[in-house]
Each structure stands twice: as C-alpha cells, then as structure tokens.
C-alpha cells in the first residue's frame, strides 16, 4: 500500500526528505496544486504517483524512480533525469526533460518549447506536439514526437536522434532529415512500446545532425 503525503497539509520539503530517506517503496502525493520541485532528487527505485498538476522541476534529477504525474507539469519536468521513468499524463510546459542524461520521460499530451533541450542520453516520448526549439543542442538520446513539431527543431544538434510522426514547422541550424533504416524502426518500436503507445513506427520520419557545425569554420559564419 502506498504511503500517502498530502501537500495541502505537508510542505514539499517534508515530501522530498521522506522520498530521499525512502522508508517506503510506493508513494501517493495528493494536492500538489502546482507546487515546485515535487519529488526531485529521488535516488531509489520508488514508485511515486502525484495526483494533480505540478509546477517547475517535478522529478528533477530523478534516479531509478518511476514518477507519474496525473495532471499537467510546469517548466523543466524531469530536468537532468539520470534513470528511471517519469510520466506526465497531461501536458508539459517548456524545457521538459532538459539536459536529461538517461531514463525515459513520457508525456502523454503536448510538450511546450525546448522539449529535450540539451538532452544528454535521456529518451523522451511525447504523445502530442512539441513547441519550438525542441532538442536544441541535443547531445545524445532519442526524442519521439507522435504529433507535430514547432519551429527550429533540433537546432545545433549533436548526436541526439529525433523521430516525428506529424509535420515539422521548420528545422533548426544543422538539423536534417535522415533515412529511416531498419535499426531506426527497431529502436523506435522499442521506445513506443516502453511509452505504452500504439503508433506504427513506419509513420515517422527521422531527423539528426548534419554535423556541419562541429568545427568553427569561416564558411559557417552565417549559421553562428
């Protein structure tokens, strides 16, 4: 049975301290009411269900835990997550999964601007659309967008891979469409399965870095 913490009665500090000490493996958080930094810095294999909307940085720097937000998430949900799974049942604000190093972030609804900005190995699956500048400077990991992508997708991309099912408003500097080979279909199928989604991988397109901005060259002046 899950340990219950009601944020209408306890401060976030008490919740996070308890999650860091981890006397229980299963937690249920009531009345988050847009609170910031809910369930951040967890380092154990816990299950945390947050019943409502959260503010900034929910599940920030998550390690090993499975955190589910049964609502919408504010800026920077699962920022810099290292491992585990974070799931947002609703929509997510900007910078979802920013700089994440590992684990899986699933957003069932839409994600706003800069989803996966500077991602460093995290996998992100968005059921709906993503806003502009998503995967900006993405270094590693995979971003899957089942809906549409906004302007400047994958700007200044390094080695992160992007899959989009819908339309892409525009690609950012040095981001290009790439061939979808068998290994990409296979990894996309795995990601969709992990995110509990039933889209057909064949309906997606792949985007990645043209690797033309990896070295400072006078020919690239316009791109800088």
């Amino acid at each position, binding site marked *: 049975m899950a340990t219950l913490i009601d944020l209408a009665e306890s401060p976030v500090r008490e919740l996070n301290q308890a999650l860091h000490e981890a006397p229980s493996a299963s937690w249920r958080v009531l009345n988050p009411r847009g609170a910031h930094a809910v369930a951040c810095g967890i380092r154990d294999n816990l299950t945390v269900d947050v019943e409502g909307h959260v503010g900034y940085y929910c599940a920030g720097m998550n390690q090993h835990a499975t955190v589910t937000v049964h609502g919408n998430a504010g800026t920077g949900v699962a920022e810099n997550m290292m491992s585990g799974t974070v799931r947002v049942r609703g929509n997510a604000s900007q910078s979802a999964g920013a700089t994440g190093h590992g684990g899986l972030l699933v957003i069932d609804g839409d994600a706003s601007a*800069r989803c996966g900005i500077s991602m*460093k190995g995290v996998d992100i699956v968005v059921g709906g659309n993503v806003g502009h500048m998503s995967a900006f400077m993405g270094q590693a990991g995979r971003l899957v967008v089942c809906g549409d992508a906004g302007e400047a997708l994958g700007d200044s991309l390094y080695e992160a891979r992007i899959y989009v099912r819908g339309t892409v408003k525009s690609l950012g500097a040095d981001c290009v469409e790439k061939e979808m080979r068998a290994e990409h279909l296979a990894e996309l199928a795995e990601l969709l399965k992990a995110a509990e989604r039933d889209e057909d991988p064949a309906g997606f397109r792949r985007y990645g870095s043209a690797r033309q901005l990896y070295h400072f060259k006078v020919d690239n002046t316009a791109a800088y």
Partner: protein
Amino acid sequence: MEPASHGLRESATFDRATIHAIQRAAETGIYDIRGWGAKRRLPHFDDLLLLGASMSRYPLEGYRERCDTDVVLGTRHAKNPLRLATPVTIAGMSFGALSAQAKESLGRGASEAGTSTTTGDGGMTPEERGHSKHLVYQYLPSRYGMNPDDLRAADAIEVVLGQGAKPGGGGMLLGQKITERVAGMRTLPVGIDQRSACRHPDWTGPDDLAIKILELREITDWEKPIYVKVGATRTYYDVKLAVHAGADVVVVDGMQGGTAATQDVFIEHVGIPTLAALPQAVQALQELGVHREVQLIVSGGIRGGADMAKALALGADAVAIGTAALIALGDNHPKYDADYRELGSAAGYFDDYQDGRDPAGISTQDEELSARLDPVEGGRRLANFLRVMTMEAQTLARACGKAHLLHLEPEDLVALTIESAAMARVPLAGTQWIPGAGL
C-alpha cells in the same frame, strides 16, 4: 635600427598589436580566440592605497598580535556553510580546459591552505573531489557532466550566470582539447569544437532562478550553500536579483577575470572592471540589509595580498583567484620561454590556452605536456602562494589596526586617480573628494 631612435613614430591608435590583429583577421577570415583575461590597462586595485595607522589610529604588532583570517560562506540558508581558513578561494576552471594534473594541483594547494576550489564547465572528476577538502560544484548552462551524485558530494553549489571574461557568452573548448575522457564527461563527440549555451536551458530570469535554487536545495536537502556567479556588468541590479532569488553567496567576476577560450573582442570589450563592480555589489547588499549575511566573493585580476586586502576593505567577504593560481603552478614561467617562442609567444605573453599545447602542462590535455606538471609540487607552490597572499593581507590589515581581515573598511582606503576614486567610492588621496558622491 631602433625605429624610435631615428624619429619614427608608432601610432597610438594603430599600435603594433592592432596592426597585427587586422592583418591576422584579413589572412584567416575568423576572429581571434584566446585564453587569459583582458590585457588592456584598466582602473584596478593598484589605484588604491591603504591608510596605515599613525596618531589617530592604533596599529597591531606584526608578529605578536593576532589578525585572524577565517571566513564562513553560506550562512544564510545552508545547513553546512563553508568554513575557510583564509578569504581567498580558487575560481572555477574546468577539467578539459585544464589538465587533470592542474586540477589536482589546485585541489591540493587549496586544501593545504584551508580554502576551497571549484569545478568548471565539464563536471567533477574523482581526482578533483579526492584532493579538495572544500569543493564548489558549478551549475552551468551546458550542464556537462551534471548529476545529482556529484551535487551531493559537493560542499557548495555555484549557479553560473556568467563570467567576467565574457558576460553574456557561453563556454568554448576547441577540438584539440576534446579528448576521449573530456568528451565522455561532456557527452560530446571526440575532437569537436565545443560551443556551450550562454543561457540556462530550463530557467529564464530571476523569478525562475528562485525556483531553480529551491530545486537545488531540495535535491541536496538544504545542506549546501548556493552561490550565484555573475560577470560584472549591471552589478548593482544583478546582485539584488541574486539575493532575491535566494543566493547564500554572490560571486562577482570583473572583466579582468580569465578564460580558457573566448573571442579576443569579447574579452577586451564586454563587462566592467572589478574595481567598478565591487562597490556596486556592496551597495546592493547593504540596501537589502544582507551585507555580511549574504557573502560576497570578488574575482577578476586578483594578484596578491594587496588586492585581497583592498577588495575586503571595500566590502567583499572573500576573493577568488584563477589566473594567479595558474601562474603559481608555473604558467608563463621563464623556464618554458623557448617552448613558448616555438609557439609564437614568449614567457609573460602566453595566452593560447585554447590551443592545448601549453608547455607548462596546465591548459592542455596532451599526455606528455600534462606530465610536466607534478601535482604534488604544483599543490605546494599554490599553497605557498595562498599563504603569502594571506600574510601580505594580514600585514596590511595590522598596519590599519585590524584584528581580522574582514575588519578592513572603505575608510582605510584612498584613491590615486579620479577614475578609481569614482569607481571605488573612496576619496582621492589627500582630499575629501569622492567624484560622483551625493549625486
């Protein structure tokens, strides 16, 4: 023939360095990237003098009466503030920009002297953590190597908004220094020219920063002091906003602050001198009623005990050194002059930290060059320098009748130039005149 002796006149506007810069740009088509900090002449602590005691003040005996040097940083919110033996710390410099040997030397030297050292834009190495008694972990826009385990292993966290050498600019590390280890720590392809973001990826502005600081405190259970570092520009406002955002410590880095790689035009033309920034920061803290409660660390061109004493007198709680620490390790040492000349430079001029071929083994990832720097010897040299800085500052403080370095005050200072008097807000020597006061 010496041209000047034959009546030839060099242009002050187009001096030889300027002519060279134009010719270099014309030949290469790309701007100059270099290390070090601003090289132009700027109003600085040299333009201030301390008023030693005589009739109206009572000095302390040099070798018998105490002049304490300890300082506590992060007393505002953190459970575990940093307790340092001397108010001079080592500024953030990355592994990647510097060799592992240099980082280890900095850790050893700082620890021996009882002070802190700081990571940089590249994460924390085990060697650095292991050799640093007090380690400040930088939280930068790039978040290279950022992880919660290192955050918890740190003694303080420094949220970096900018640095004095390039306020408004992101980090830069050229491909010759992106070795396998450096690339692995930063999750980058080996050998690329790294360009770090100049803005944080998940917050914008001071209101967001307050929430970011809250998150960092929550992750680390409110144990660690949280610093906010800004490059010196609109310092009065930046310091006020940093305090409102919840900083325990504010770090202000003046334009003389060093860098491992930045455009020359950026280094020389953006930001304000340390001397101009410091009084603005103190004013901001005083107006908020948190001077000494939120500690102020000042860096950018700090070279010795005199600079330190004057910065403390103007209201800083501590100073930080970067370039001076590297010089203490052996940077620009005359013994490497022949090597520097092979690179087109000379001892005393070398600033090509971006290039990775540093003969002193400091700003390089080359194994052979790095091996020239013995971390034990480097640590000893730095500890010596830190001790000398501290003793110099004590000498000056005792002369002013102070039983603690932090008792130095603006009243102990006068200025040599009108510019420095206006910036430091102390009177021109021999007068009561503070230009701009009361306006």
